C-alpha cells in the first residue's frame, strides 16, 4: 500500500467553538466569493480546488507566464485570495465522493500532483457545502474534430494564460457566445494569428440578446470594450451566422470548412468555403459540472439543451445544507458567479438574506440572472447543428463511437444504448460528448436521459479508494466484511 495519510478537514478547536463548518468546492469566482462571505459570517471554511492554483477558469494564471493583458478584475481576485489565510485551503484536491445525509456533508478527496498515485487522503465532514464546480466548454462534434490541433476554446485560453503557448500559429475560432472574444484575444496575444471568429448566432438573435445591455457581456463595460478593441487591433474578422462545420487534414489540422448557418444552425448549402489553418478553437457553449451536486442529491432542472442545479434566491439546493453557486446554476459569467458565491457562502454559514451585507450581491444576482436568460436566448445551441455530422463522424472521442452507431441504437434505454455502443463509457464518462449524444438520440426519435450521474466524481486510483477500507486482515478474517460467492 502506498503511504496514505489522512488529514481531517476540521480541527478540534473549531468544533469546540461551535462554528458552522462550511466546505466549498471550487476555487473560481463563485467559490472564492463564497469563502469570503462564509468567513465573514463566522464559519470555519474548508475550500477544495482541483487546480494547482486558485482562480478557476476565469482567473487562471501563472505568475510568470500569464500576460497581464489577459487578466481581468485581478484586484478582486487578490482581495478574495487575501482573506483565505483564515480558511483551510487545499489546491490540487480531487473530490471523488460526496454524500449528504441527516444534515451532514461528507466529502472524500485526494490531494497532490494531478493524477499522481498515492496522494494524501482528505476526509471532510461539514455542516454545509457550497458547490461551485463551474462549467467546461461544450464543443460540438464535427467531421475531423479529433485531429490534433483542434481544441476547445477554453483549452486555447487555458494554454495561453497558464502555459504561455498556443497549439498552432494560425487559428480559426468558432462557436457561440461572448466568450469567443476573450479567447481570440488570448490567442492573438500568446502568438497565434486568429484567422477569424465565427459566431453561429445571427444578428437578430444577438440584437435581441445582449446588444441592448452590452456592459453585462462579460462582466464589465470596460472588459467588452477591451475585447472589441483587441479584435480591431489584431485585425480579427468577426463573422456572425457562420461556423466551422468540418475540419480538414490527414494527421493534423490543415484547414477548415466554414459555412453560413441558418437560425437553426444548419449549414446553408452552397456557402461552404475552405480556409487554411493549423488550429481550431471550438466553443459552442458550456456544460455545468453537475456530478458533485447530483451525488449530493440536489435536484437538477432543465432539458437536454441545458441542465443546471436548481437553487432558490438564497442559493439553496433541494438538499438541506447543500448550496450551489456560479455556472453550475446557470451560465451567467464572472459577476453572476461572484454574487451567487457571496450569497451561498453567507447562507451556508448560517447567515440571513435580510442581512445588509446581502443587498449588493442579491441585486447583482437578480440582474445577472436576467442576463443569463438573454445570453441563452441569443447564443444557445440550436438543434440543426447535427446536420453537419456525417454518419461516420466520431461523436464519443474516448471510445470512437460514430453518429450512425448511436442513432442506430436510439430506441433502447440510454443505459442500454451506452452499453451497446460504448458511447459515453470512456475515460471522460460522457463529459465531452454527453449533450451531443443526447441530441443524436433525440434526432433519431429516442428519449434521451441525462449523462449527469457519475458515482466516481474525479479520477482516483484504486489504491486510494482501498485506503478507506478496514484493514485487509479484518477483511480476510471476515470480522467487518464477510466473504461471499462471486457476483454474476
Amino acid at each position: 500500500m502506498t503511504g496514505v495519510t489522512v488529514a481531517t478537514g476540521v480541527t478540534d478547536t473549531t468544533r469546540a467553538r461551535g462554528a458552522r463548518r462550511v466546505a466549498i468546492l471550487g476555487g473560481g469566482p463563485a467559490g472564492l466569493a463564497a469563502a469570503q462571505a462564509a468567513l465573514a459570517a463566522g464559519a470555519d471554511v474548508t475550500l477544495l480546488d482541483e487546480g494547482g492554483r486558485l482562480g478557476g477558469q476565469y482567473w487562471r494564471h501563472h505568475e510568470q507566464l500569464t500576460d497581464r493583458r489577459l487578466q481581468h478584475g485581478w484586484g478582486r481576485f487578490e482581495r478574495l485570495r487575501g482573506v483565505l489565510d483564515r480558511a483551510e485551503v487545499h489546491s490540487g484536491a480531487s473530490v471523488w465522493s460526496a454524500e449528504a445525509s441527516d444534515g451532514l456533508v461528507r466529502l472524500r478527496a485526494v490531494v497532490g500532483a494531478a493524477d499522481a498515485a498515492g496522494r494524501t487522503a482528505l476526509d471532510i465532514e461539514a455542516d454545509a457545502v457550497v458547490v461551485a464546480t463551474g462549467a467546461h466548454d461544450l464543443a460540438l462534434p464535427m467531421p475531423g474534430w479529433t485531429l490534433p490541433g483542434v481544441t476547445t476554446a477554453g483549452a486555447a485560453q487555458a494554454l495561453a494564460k497558464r502555459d504561455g503557448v498556443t497549439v498552432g500559429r494560425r487559428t480559426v475560432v468558432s462557436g457561440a457566445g461572448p466568450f469567443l472574444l476573450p479567447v481570440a484575444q488570448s490567442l492573438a496575444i500568446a502568438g497565434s494569428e486568429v484567422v477569424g471568429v465565427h459566431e453561429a448566432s445571427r444578428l437578430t438573435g444577438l440584437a435581441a440578446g445582449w446588444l441592448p445591455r452590452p456592459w453585462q457581456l462579460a462582466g464589465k463595460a470596460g472588459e467588452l470594450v477591451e475585447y472589441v478593441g483587441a479584435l480591431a487591433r489584431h485585425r480579427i474578422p468577426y463573422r456572425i451566422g457562420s461556423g466551422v462545420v468540418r475540419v480538414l487534414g490527414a494527421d493534423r489540422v490543415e484547414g477548415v470548412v466554414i459555412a453560413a448557418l441558418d437560425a437553426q444552425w444548419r449549414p446553408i448549402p452552397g456557402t461552404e468555403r475552405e480556409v487554411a489553418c493549423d488550429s481550431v478553437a471550438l466553443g459552442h457553449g458550456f456544460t455545468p459540472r453537475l456530478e458533485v451536486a447530483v451525488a449530493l442529491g440536489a435536484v437538477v432542472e432543465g432539458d437536454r439543451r441545458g441542465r443546471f442545479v436548481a437553487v432558490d434566491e438564497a442559493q439553496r439546493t433541494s438538499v438541506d445544507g447543500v448550496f450551489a453557486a456560479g455556472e453550475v446554476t446557470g451560465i451567467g459569467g464572472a459577476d453572476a458567479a461572484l454574487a451567487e458565491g457571496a450569497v451561498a457562502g453567507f447562507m451556508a454559514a448560517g447567515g440571513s438574506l435580510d442581512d445588509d451585507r446581502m443587498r449588493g450581491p442579491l441585486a447583482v444576482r437578480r440582474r445577472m440572472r436576467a442576463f443569463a436568460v438573454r445570453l441563452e436566448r441569443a447564443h444557445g445551441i440550436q438543434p440543426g447543428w447535427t446536420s453537419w455530422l456525417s454518419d461516420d463522424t466520431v461523436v464519443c472521442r474516448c471510445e470512437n463511437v460514430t453518429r450512425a452507431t448511436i442513432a442506430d441504437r436510439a430506441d433502447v434505454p440510454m443505459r442500454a444504448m451506452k452499453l451497446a455502443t460504448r458511447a459515453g463509457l470512456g475515460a471522460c464518462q460522457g463529459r465531452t460528448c454527453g449533450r451531443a449524444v443526447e441530441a443524436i438520440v433525440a434526432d433519431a426519435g429516442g428519449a434521451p436521459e441525462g449523462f449527469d450521474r457519475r458515482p466516481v466524481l474525479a479520477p482516483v486510483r484504486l489504491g486510494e479508494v482501498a485506503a478507506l477500507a478496514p484493514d485487509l486482515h479484518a477483511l480476510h478474517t471476515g470480522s467487518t466484511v464477510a466473504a461471499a460467492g462471486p457476483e454474476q
Partner: protein
Amino acid sequence: MIRITVDDEAIEGRAGQTIAGVLIGAGRTAWRTAQTGERGVFCGIGVCHDCLVTVNDVEGVRACQREAVDGDRVEREVRA
C-alpha cells in the same frame, strides 16, 4: 528552465508549465495514440482525458493538469 523526457527524448520547458504546455512549447501537438489516430490536448482543463500520458511509470495522467517537474519521464500511451 526544466527538462523532461518524452519517450526518452529530452525537451525543455518553463517552470510551472503543465506537461501539455511543455509538449506544445516544444512543437508537439499529438502525444497519444487512440484507436482512430493521434490525440493531444483538447479541453485543456482536465475534462476530456484526451491528453493522457504515462508519467514516471504511472499511467493515465492528464498532461493538461499535471505540472511538469524537472526530470519527469513522460511516455506515450497507445490504445489497442
